[in-house]
C-alpha cells in the first residue's frame, strides 16, 4: 500500500513540476500551432471567423508571383550570408585564438559587441552610414561606381547591403562558437604533429579543420535557419522594396495578415515557412548528434 501511495505521490510531484511549463506551452505554442494549420484552410480575416475553403489558399499561393519572388529573395539572402559569415567568423576566431590574455579579451569585445545591440539600433546606425546624401560610406560607392548609391532603394544593392548589415550584427555569435570549437581541440595534438615536422598548413588541414568541422556544421545550420527567418532588418531598412526586390516570406506573412487583413492566407504562408525551417532543423539536429557522438 505504502509503495502505491508513494508512487502516486511521486507522479503528483512530477506533474506539479511540469505543469507550469506545460500550461504555457499548450496556450501560446501548441494551440497556435494547431490554429495556424486550421486557419490556413479558411478565408478568415486577421480577427474573426472565416469559411472553410479547403486548399484554395495554397492554390492561390502557388500562383502568387510575390510568393516566388519572396522564396527567391530568401534563397539569395541565404547565399549572401550563410557561407560568408561562417568564413569571416572562422578567420576572426583563428586570429583571436592566437592572441594572448587581455589582447584576446579586447579583440573579442570589439568583434562581439554588435551582437548585443537591438536590431533597430543596428539598422539606424547603418541607415545613417549609408545615407544617400551624407553617409560616411558613400565615398566607397562613389569610388567604385562613380556616383553615390541609395543602397536601400536600389534593386541590385538592397539585399547585399542588408546582408552586410546582418553579418556585421550577428557575426560575433559565430566567432564565439568557433572559438569554443578551437579551444576544444587538445593542444598535445599540435605539439605531437609539430614534433613530426608538420607545417602550419598541414596543421590546419589535418587537425584544425577536421576537428572543427562539427562546430562549423553547427554554425552553418544555425545561420541557415536564422537567415530564413529574415524580417526585422528588411522591414526596417527597405520594407521589401524597391519593386519587391527585398520581399521575403516573413514580410509577406506580415503584409497579408496585419496590413491586408488576410489571416487565412497569411497562415498558409507561415506554414510553408514552418515546413522549410523544420526540414532544415531536423538536419541540424542530426548533425549535432553526429557532432557530439552521443545520443542526447
Amino acid at each position, binding site marked *: 500500500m505504502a509503495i502505491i501511495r508513494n508512487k502516486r505521490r511521486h507522479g503528483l510531484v512530477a506533474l506539479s513540476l511540469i505543469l507550469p511549463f506545460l500550461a504555457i506551452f499548450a496556450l501560446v505554442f501548441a494551440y497556435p500551432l494547431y490554429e495556424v494549420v486550421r486557419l490556413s484552410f479558411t478565408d478568415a480575416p486577421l480577427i474573426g471567423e472565416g469559411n472553410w475553403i479547403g486548399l484554395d489558399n495554397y492554390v492561390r499561393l502557388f500562383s502568387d508571383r510575390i510568393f516566388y519572388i519572396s522564396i527567391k529573395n530568401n534563397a539569395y539572402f541565404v547565399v549572401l550570408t550563410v557561407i560568408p559569415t561562417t568564413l569571416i567568423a572562422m578567420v576572426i576566431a583563428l*586570429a583571436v585564438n592566437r*592572441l594572448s590574455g587581455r589582447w584576446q*579579451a579586447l579583440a573579442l569585445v570589439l568583434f*562581439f559587441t554588435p551582437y*548585443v545591440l537591438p536590431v533597430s539600433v543596428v539598422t539606424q546606425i547603418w541607415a545613417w552610414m549609408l545615407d544617400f546624401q551624407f553617409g560616411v560610406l558613400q565615398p566607397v560607392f562613389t569610388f567604385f561606381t562613380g556616383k553615390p548609391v541609395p543602397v536601400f532603394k536600389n534593386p541590385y544593392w538592397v539585399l547585399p547591403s542588408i546582408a552586410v548589415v546582418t553579418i556585421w550584427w550577428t557575426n560575433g555569435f559565430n566567432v*564565439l562558437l568557433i572559438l569554443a570549437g578551437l579551444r576544444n581541440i587538445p593542444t598535445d595534438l599540435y605539439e605531437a604533429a609539430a614534433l613530426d615536422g608538420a607545417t602550419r598548413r598541414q596543421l590546419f588541414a589535418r587537425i584544425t579543420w577536421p576537428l572543427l568541422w562539427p562546430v562549423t556544421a553547427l554554425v552553418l545550420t544555425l545561420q541557415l535557419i536564422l537567415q530564413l527567418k529574415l524580417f526585422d532588418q528588411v522591414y526596417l531598412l527597405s520594407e521589401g522594396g524597391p519593386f519587391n526586390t527585398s520581399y521575403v516570406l516573413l514580410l509577406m506573412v506580415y503584409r497579408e495578415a496585419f496590413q491586408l487583413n488576410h489571416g487565412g492566407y497569411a497562415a498558409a504562408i507561415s506554414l510553408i515557412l514552418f515546413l522549410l525551417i523544420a526540414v532544415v532543423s531536423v538536419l541540424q539536429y542530426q548533425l549535432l548528434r553526429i557532432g557530439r557522438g552521443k545520443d542526447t
Partner: protein
Amino acid sequence: MTPQRRIENIALTAITLIAGLIWIFPLYWAFITSIRTESRVVSDSAGLIPDEFSLSSYSDALFNTSLMHWYINSIGTSLIITVIVLITGMMCAYALSQMQFFGRKLLYGVVLASFMVPVQSLVVPQFVLMNDLGLINKWGGIILPQLVVPVVIIIYKQFFDAVPKEMKEAVVLDGGSDYTLLFRVYLPLNWGITTALGIITFIMAWNSFLWPFLVITTEEMMTIPVGITQVNDAFGVAYARIMSVALLAAAPVVIAYLIFQKRVTEAVMISSGVKG
C-alpha cells in the same frame, strides 16, 4: 620563442586589433555623430575625428521622446520573461531528468520537436489569441508568447543528468522530497548554468523585435527596439538625435556586456551546446 616568431606574434596581434577597430567603427561613428550639432553632422567638413562636444541631442532624446517608458517596458518585460522561463524550465527539466512518470519520453520528444518550430510562423494565431485575452498593448501580451524557450529545458536536463547519483541518495535517505532535491541540491550545483541561461534569455527578450512590434501599437507601451524606430517620424532627418536615441537604447545591454563579458561569452557557448 625565436625573434622571428615574436615579431610575427606582435604583427598578428596588431592586425587583429586593427581589424577589430574597423569592425566597431559603426558604433564609433554613431557616437561621433551623436555629440555633434545637427548642422555640423551634415556639413561637408565633418571628418572622422570628434571636433564638437554637444549633449543637446541627448537631452532631446531623453526628454522629447518616450525613451523612459520604453526602458521601463523593456526592463520589466525582459526580467519577467527571464525569471519565468528559468523557473518553469528548471522544474520541467528536473522532472524529465530525475523522475519517472507517465508520458516522460513523450514530453521530452515534444520539447525537442518544438525546438524546431520557428515561433515567427505562429504570429498570426498568437496575435488572435492575445486579442481574445485582451492583452494587446499590455505587458502580458509582450511576455506570454515569449515564455516558451525549449532550449532552456534541453540544456538544464543535460546538466541535471550529469549530477552524480550519490548526491541524490544522501538527501533521499534523510527523507528529502524532490522539491528539496531540486532547490537545495540540483539548482545550487548548477548556478553557473542558471546564470548562463538567464543572460541568454534576457538578451533574447530585450532584443526581440517582431513580436513586440506586432502586439504593441501605442507609443507608451513599446519596448526599446520597437520604440526607437518611431523617432525617425518624430525628428525627421536629424541624425545627431537619431544616433543619440540609438546609443541610449543600446547602452544598458552594452554596458552590462562589458561588465560581465566573460559570463556572456560563456553563456553563448554553453547555450548553443558547444561547451559543456
